């Protein structure tokens, strides 16, 4: 079992991250009602989501305090796979014509 430590101080420590995450969520809602083109809005919202996700992973999930090798093993591999998913996007052009119930 992990070494016993004094508890009770962890929530105030993470409150700034908590409030930033809520602020990002609020900002996303605000931006959703502005007149952006769909592609631009997608890029902006995705960028904010990445920021929020990174904060949660680094601080709530403590990846920032894990061994550096864990970070270097997981995150580049994840980014690589997600970028490779990008490669199938062009293939999904077919869905516009072959999608179920297409008119």
């Amino acid at each position, binding site marked *: 079992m992990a070494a016993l430590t004094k*508890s*009770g101080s962890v929530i105030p420590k993470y409150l700034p991250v908590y409030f930033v995450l809520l602020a990002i969520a609020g900002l996303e809602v605000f931006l959703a009602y502005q007149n952006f083109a769909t*592609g631009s809005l*997608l890029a902006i919202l995705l960028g904010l*989501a990445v920021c929020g996700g990174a904060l*949660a992973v680094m601080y*709530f999930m403590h990846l920032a305090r894990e061994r550096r090798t864990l970070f270097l093993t997981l995150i580049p591999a994840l980014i690589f796979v997600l970028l490779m998913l990008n490669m199938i996007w062009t293939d*999904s052009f077919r869905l*516009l014509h072959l999608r179920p119930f297409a008119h």
Partner: protein
Amino acid sequence: MWLFIISDAVTFGALLFGYGYLRTASPDWPTPFKFNPSILNVMIMTFVLVTSSLTMLGAVDAAKAGDKPKAGRFMWSTILLGVIFAGLHIREWFGLIDEGVRLFQNPWGSPLFGATFFSITGLHLLHVVSGVVAIAVIARGFARGKLTAGHVETTGLYWHFVDVVWMFVVPLVYLLNVSR
């Protein structure tokens, strides 16, 4: 747990990539989410889920300190927030179903809207429900001394991951489709 989380992140990534492409490429994609009730509901759900991450952090901290009652209180608070989140989510689903949204049919436009919406939010909801069950099992086991703080921490990792996924689901699935 990290390997599971990364593989699950890729699963959600694939779903969201596919959805993102269909959304931006379909000119008749429905935008049914009115501020009230849908977006308001989603904002409350986000608040509830992010708050549950905070209570889970408290549970892990208390568990590591060997404070079983406090860890239990934090874990049951997390469970309660997870149940509230799931309830709000199911309410959202029933609202859309009442409006005529089905897997391959809706009154507004591209029939793929229902398939993407229900598959992405459904998979996330499945993760939330699984997380609630897992935390309940861990809370019980930890209180009885059968499980350790390590188990609480590992479950906490999973719960935070569910929170992270929601941060991507909200802007892509809901906020890109707000009704103006």
